[in-house]
Every structure is written in structure tokens, then in C-alpha cells.
């Protein structure tokens, strides 16, 4: 909600005052390296990859430092352990045997330089989508395209949703997480666009919708609400032990494809979301 007003106010002010933006040099300290684990596992047939990296100094030419010699394993509900092996092709750790089942509990174990990083998460059940659609919006003279998902939110339980979007064959990118804090048990519409706003009327868009756990929602919610207006930006709260950055989640996922060239303008919907 708060993000809602502040972005509105900022938007308004950017239109009223021609504020100027300029690249500057800032001396930033080099901190000790931290281990980063990104384990966003799901029940899709595609390869399940766990990324293990280290942080690098801000001015480093590399985006991160890949750890290739970690031990990575995930233990499932009947103590069946899947080993994830480093794959240079993926720059991450891949398992052939891992399969995820709804409502089961999984434990991640990563060993880097003899330090053990662990996390345990349950896989939430998929919330089925009733209908999908496409939407065009005009906000302050700019046009935005969205894929829409309509569904019945299960009442009485907290539900969390995460959307990643691929536009015109480019890699999937995180768009947003949603919770049902304000619409528990209602018939809900999610509008899913692209953070880069690169969807146009000819785009082919693939959306990955995941039902995620509270910890994964919290991680991404903190990441997406960190902005230069925050009083004190911080690393998002990780559900992995021993001070690792990143998160571990096992989610139910579905893939949806949209071809915006087939978009039929039934009525112009100017909305503000």
C-alpha cells in the first residue's frame, strides 16, 4: 500500500519537476565475501538449478564469483537425497533425480569451504488459474501491457505468488510477488508485466507463475521494496542458515504463453494499479 502512494507521488513529481540524473563516482568499501545461494526449485520438467556464488566488490568487472566446488544436496520427504552436481553450462548445480511434490518438505544442504548452509521449506499447493487475458493501460501518457490471471484465492490460509516473465525469448526475469493479505478468499486478478517495460503489441510473453512459501515471498518482497527512498536498505531476510545470502524455495509452478499480436481491444481500459 505504502509503495503505492510513494510511487504515485514520485511519478507525479517527476512530471512536475525536471529532476536531473547523473552518473557519479563513489568510493565504496570492499567487504568480506559472503556466500550467495539461489535455490528456486519447482515442479516443472525443465532443469532444476541451484546457484552458489560469492559476493564481489562493487567495482569488480565480474558480476559475481561462481563457486564450483560446493557440495549441494536436497533431501525430500522420505529421506531421499538428490545430489546437485556442478554444470559449467548452467554455471550452477543441477540434479537429474530431483522431483518436487506439493505439500512435501525439503531440506537444502550446501557445503562451501567446510561451512554448512541449510534450509528447510515446504512446497505449497498450486492455486489454479480460471482464465488468462491481456491488458493495455495508459498511465501518464505511457502505455503498458500486462498479462492477467484470474483465480479464486483459497480462503483462510495465507497464499503467496511469484511471477517471472520472459519477453521475446529473453531469459526469465522476476516481475513481482503478491500476497493475499488484502484479498484473502476473494476472486483475484493479478496483472503481470515486465520490470523493463519491454512488452509491446508484437511481443511473445512467457509467464512463470509460482505458488511460493512465506519465506520466499518475504525475501522477494523485501528485495522489491528496497529503493533509494528506504531509510536503511538491507540484505533481504534469507531462510538459509549460517549467514548465506539468497534463499531456498520449492514451489508449484505453471508456464503461460501470451502472444500480444493477437490482443483484441474490446474496450480501452485505463487503469491505475
Amino acid at each position, binding site marked *: *500500500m*505504502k509503495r503505492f*502512494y*510513494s510511487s*504515485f*507521488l514520485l511519478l*507525479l*513529481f517527476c512530471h*512536475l*519537476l525536471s*529532476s*536531473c*540524473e*547523473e*552518473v*557519479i563516482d*563513489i568510493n*565504496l*568499501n570492499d*567487504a568480506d565475501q*559472503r556466500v*550467495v545461494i*539461489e535455490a528456486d526449485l519447482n515442479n516443472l520438467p525443465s532443469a532444476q538449478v541451484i546457484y552458489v*556464488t560469492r*559476493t*564481489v*566488490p*562493487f567495482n*569488480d*568487472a*565480474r*558480476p*559475481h564469483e561462481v563457486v564450483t566446488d560446493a557440495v549441494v544436496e536436497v533431501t525430500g520427504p522420505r529421506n531421499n537425497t538428490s545430489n546437485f552436481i556442478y554444470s559449467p553450462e548452467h554455471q550452477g548445480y543441477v540434479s537429474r533425480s530431483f522431483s518436487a511434490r506439493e505439500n512435501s518438505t525439503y531440506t537444502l544442504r550446501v557445503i562451501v569451504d567446510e561451512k554448512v548452509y541449510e534450509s528447510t521449506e515446504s512446497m505449497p499447493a498450486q492455486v489454479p488459474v480460471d482464465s488468462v487475458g491481456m491488458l493495455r493501460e495508459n498511465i501518464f*501518457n505511457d502505455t503498458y501491457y500486462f498479462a492477467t490471471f484470474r483465480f479464486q484465492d483459497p480462503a483462510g490460509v495465507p497464499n503467496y505468488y511469484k511471477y*517471472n516473465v520472459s519477453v521475446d525469448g529473453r531469459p*526469465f*526475469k*522476476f516481475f513481482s510477488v503478491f500476497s493475499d*493479505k*488484502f*484479498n484473502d478468499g*476473494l*476472486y*483475484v*486478478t493479478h496483472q503481470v508485466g515486465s520490470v523493463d517495460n519491454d512488452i509491446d503489441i508484437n511481443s511473445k510473453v512467457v509467464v512463470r507463475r509460482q505458488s511460493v512459501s512465506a519465506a520466499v515471498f518475504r525475501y522477494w518482497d523485501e*528485495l522489491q521494496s528496497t529503493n*533509494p*527512498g*528506504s*531509510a*536503511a*536498505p*538491507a540484505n533481504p*531476510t534469507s531462510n538459509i542458515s549460517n549467514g548465506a*545470502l*539468497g534463499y531456498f524455495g520449492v514451489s508449484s509452478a505453471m508456464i503461460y504463453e501470451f502472444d500480444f499480436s493477437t490482443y483484441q481491444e474490446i474496450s480501452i481500459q*485505463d*487503469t*491505475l*494499479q
Partner: protein
Amino acid sequence: MGYSTLSSTVELNKNVQRSFEISNAEKEIEEIVVSASSRPNQVRSPQMGAVKITTEEIKKVPVIFGEPDILKTIQLLPGVATGNEGSSNFFVRGGGGDQNLILLDEAIVYNASHLLGFFSTFNSDAIKDVNLFKGGIPAQYGGRISSVLDINMLDGNKKEFGVEGGVGLIASRLKIDGPIVKDKSSFMVSGRRTYADLFLKLSNDENINQSKLYFYDLNAKMNYKINDRNTLYLSGYFGKDDLGYSDRFSFDWGNATATLRWNSILNEKLFSNTSLIYSDFTYNVRVNSNDNDFGIASQIKNWNLKQDFTYYGLNRHSIRFGVNVLNQKISPASLNAADNSTVNSISVDTRQGYESAIYASDEWKVSDRFSMIYGLRLTNFTVMGPGTFYEFDSDGEAIGEKQYGREVVKNYLNLEPRLSMSYQLNRNNSIKASYNRIVQHLHQLTNTTSSLPTDQYVISSMNIKPQIADQVSLGYFQNFANNGYEFSTEIYYKDMQNQIDFRNGADLQANNQLEGDLLFGKGRAYGIEWLLRKNRGKLNGWISYTLAKSERQFDQINGGEWFNARQDRTHDISIVAMYELSKRWTAGATFVYNTGNAITFPSGKYQLDGSTRFYYTERNGYRMPDYHRLDLSVVYEPTPEKKRFRSSWAFGVYNAYNRRNAYIIDFRENEVNPNITEAYRIALFGAIPSVTWNFKF
């Protein structure tokens, strides 16, 4: 032009009652009148850490958009730091923005800013004077641990009608005052409205030209003299900001205050002031787009009954004592959805408490050289039901809850000693020392750099302990050139208990278990302030310099190490100069320089989901770039053509040398090579010219 100041010495050895009539000060005599006598003699008064500003001074200081502003002017004083660029938020001696008690005719003003803080809620047309206390705070004040900003509205002329106003680029103002019954009763009404939204109407875009963006203020005061011994005062303020996008989104917020005061002379030794005061701050949001149809409403309000006595019966003593009871009520943002809406209605428990206080203080002239103000304030805060109160574990998870009916949930009793002493070395030099303890029960939760109208307020509860500050200060005061110059320096140390911060990702909106997201720690602030003022002659103004430190410590933040508070600034310099070029032309200049705020920047990076993310280590371990700015103004007052009608033109430039001060610094991937990361800055304002036409008749 305002009123001339009268001073008269009354020997209180026999019954005397005198009436004074204040007259409009003529420009020609102003030079004589606004001499040392208009200001309390800083060397002789035992009060320290205090500054008094008159509206005349405020109106002479150049400011942004040409709107004279009290809060912008006090930010130019030592020990008072600004929030963001153009913000009316202020921080006194390392304290937080919510630790200032802002009073308008005794009524608490919760949110003193308009439009993200570019304007304060105080229309200077309606203001008589302003007293700021940074330390040695007298016992009649309580409730905020950093400072007291006591603002008084103009009373209105009892003799004749007057109209005063101004037309500026951003806003227009109009004030009318005069007698209701001559010599018995008078009134003052003053209004101001901005018209930025008129420009929006020029847009071709239907959504934009139907949008709203304005604020207005209304001040009114009247008094009625019942007889020579009794006078009634009624004053009020109402202000509102209104923002709207098309007809789908609207957002308004504002303060309202009302004060009824009965001033009574019980006998020649005992004076009484009885006040009934109300004030509130509300905001409303309305969203109506697609299937979303809901409103959000929030209110914070108080009723305050005060009885204050001043007793002059003892030689060398003036004694002030009294009692007040304040009912504080917070209705946090609740969401009200239409039946067919895609969101649910949410209501959050209303919280209320009673803040009661008794106090007594004595200004005692011990000897010709030594004087002091000593006092004691006893406050009791009662947290009242009904409501559900939660208990939390160390991770902020609720582990217990208890329902309360209309009953007492918790009591906090605190004793607050106050002391301010002065020893006069000779006629022109004195040293002063002070100590005060203050307790605060209302806490504003801000997790952005600029305080927003939507910031949540909480009162002390089982989990939230009252904030307590202890401050000691020592100062040296000197007047020279026959009181034409004033010099002062003060050194202070402030200890703050039960300060509030947030857990990562704290959910502050519509959250019944919000208190679980709060963290509690301590703070310390210390510094030294210098102020040199010139009060007479063609050139007036001051130079102020503050060297200070403000730190916080929370077990769960920064590994438990002390860290700089955001508003911590090492150096803070302000130079204010007003020069009378001729009878018609007056020039003004303000220069400010300060060390950048403490801020959290990343100390590394990593990748997640294919994008660069930033790795943060120490809290507020970095600094924004140094801030500096020069503002200029020129006021031209043509010779009046008609006797009564006077007008003037005020031209100004904010940020005259177009310094690109950083408003925000952020980090991003380089567009060409996303592996490389870069820092960029956003500057809000370049040089901004302004022109205002003021009139008076």
C-alpha cells in the same frame, strides 16, 4: 510591517493594572524599535537552548518558491538540521523528526508539512512569534524528547481593520483582521492556497487535466475581553493537501486544531490560563479503478485540558505551576472495501491513552548575578483498552495475546526534573548550564527518508516503552557593541532510551501485530553550537555553526555496534544576511553548508535471478555528498501612492549557483555492460526563481 514592541517596567510593590496598546510600527522608526529590546536579553535570562523568532525575521529570510516559512528559517539555527532537500522536517540536536513538540496556540500539530515537505503548515501571515527550545526545556512542556517549537498566532488588531496578502507563483495568501467590538474584541482570519494544479489543467491528457494537486491553510483567531481581568481566546487551524489522479485515485491529508483559552487575573499576584485544546491529523485514500473500489482512512487525535497558573507573590521568584490531561487516540489506517471489490475490508484496533501531568517551576533570581529556573514535571501515561494486546518473542513472532475491555492496560509514571541556571560574569557575559529529562509516549514510525502522511503512529504499550531523554548542556553568552551583537556557544550531551527502529521488511500498514516488527535500542547525541548575530544597523543576520554527532545502538542492527543516525551531520553552517540597500530596496542572502547525511550504501554485489543485487554491510556507514546552497532575495517597496495602501515586490532565487545537490543516490547496472555497476545521483532542484507581490491596506 508588524507591530512595534513595547516594554515597560512595572514595580510589583503595589496593585497596578495597566493596559498596553500596540501600534503598527512605521518603517522609519523600525530601525529604532527593532533594537535589543525586541529580543530577550540572552545574557541575563537563565533560560538556555532557546531561540525566539518573530514573523518579521522569517519574512526577510529568502526561501524556496518565495514562500516565507518558519520551519525553513529555524533550520538555519545552530543545532537544527534539515531533512531532505526542501523538506520542512527538522532534527534538533541529533533527535528524530518525531521528537519535536510542535504547538500552534498550544495545540499539537502532528504533521507540519505540505506536499512532501516543501512547505510547512504554518502560513507566516498568521503567526505572531515562534519560540524554539532545544535544551533546558521548561517544565510546562512535555511529551517530545528533542525540542519544543511553540508557535503563537496573531491576535488581530482591536482598533482598526487591516487587509494583507500576497500573490506568488505557487500560492496566494490573504489575511483580514480587525475589531469586532472596538477595544473589546478582535479577529484575524488568514488563508493560503497553492495552485500548481492549474497548470495540470493545461494538459491535453484527460487523466492529467482532471488531476488534483494543491493544498490550503486556514487560520483564524478571535478574542473577547470580558472585563479588565478576564479575556477569552478562540483560535483554530485547518489545512488540507489534496492529490488526485483522474477520478480513479485520490489522496488527501491534513491537520485541524482548535484552542479555547481563558486568561484570568485572579488577583494581582496570581494569573490563570485555562485551555481546552483539540487537534487531529487525518488522511484518506480513495481508489476506484477496474475492480478495485476501496478507501483507506486513518486518524490521530487528542483532547487536552490544561490549567496553568503563574504566581508573582514572592520577591525574586516567578512561579509557574499547573496540570494537564491529554487523551491521545490513534485510529490506524483501516481499509474499507465496496462489496464487489477485489480487496477485503480490514480494520486495525484503535489505541488510546491518557497522558496526565502536573508540573511546577520557579524562575528564581538568587542574586544579581545568579539566577535559575528549576522545575519538576510528573507524568503518568495510561494505556487504555479496549483492544487485543500481543506479546512477542525475540524474533517478533506473537506468542501470546490478551483481550482488554475498557480498562487500564498499563501505566507509566515518570518524574522529569528540569533545570537551567545562569551566572552573569558581568553586564555582557554569562555562563549557563542546564539539565532536563523528558519522556515521550507517542511514536511515529517512518521507514522512508522523507516522512509521509501515511506514516503510522503508535503510543507506548506493553512492548513499546516510553522514549526518555536526558540532556545536559553548558553555554557561554556574550553581548557586545551595546547589545548590537550577540554571541553564544553551547555544548550538549543527550542520552536517549527506548529508541525505535524496524526489523527488515517490517510490515507497518494495516498490521495488528505491528509491534512485533519493531526493534528497541538507545541513542546518544553530542555537539557544540556557535551563533553570532547582528541585530542592528543596515546589515542584519547571523552565522551559525554546529559540530555534532548522533548515534544509535540496537542489538539486532549492525551486529549490535553503534551506528550513525541518519540525520547525523558533522558540520552544519548557515549564514543569513539581510541588507537594507535603501529605503525602497532590501536584499537578503542565505548560504548553507553541511556534511551529507549518514546513509547505507552497498559494499559489494552479487547476482540473483540474472540481475545484479547489492550487498549491504554496515548501517549508515556512508555519507551523502556535502550539501551547499545559496539563496538570494530582493524586496522592492515602491513609495505608496495612496496613504494606506502599501505594496512590495519580493524577487528570489533558490539555489542561486545551481548546485546539483544529491537528493537520492542509487546504484544500477551499466546499460552497455551489465556486469559493471555504477552509482548515479538525482538532484531535485536547480536554480528556482520566484516572485511574489505583497500588499497591505
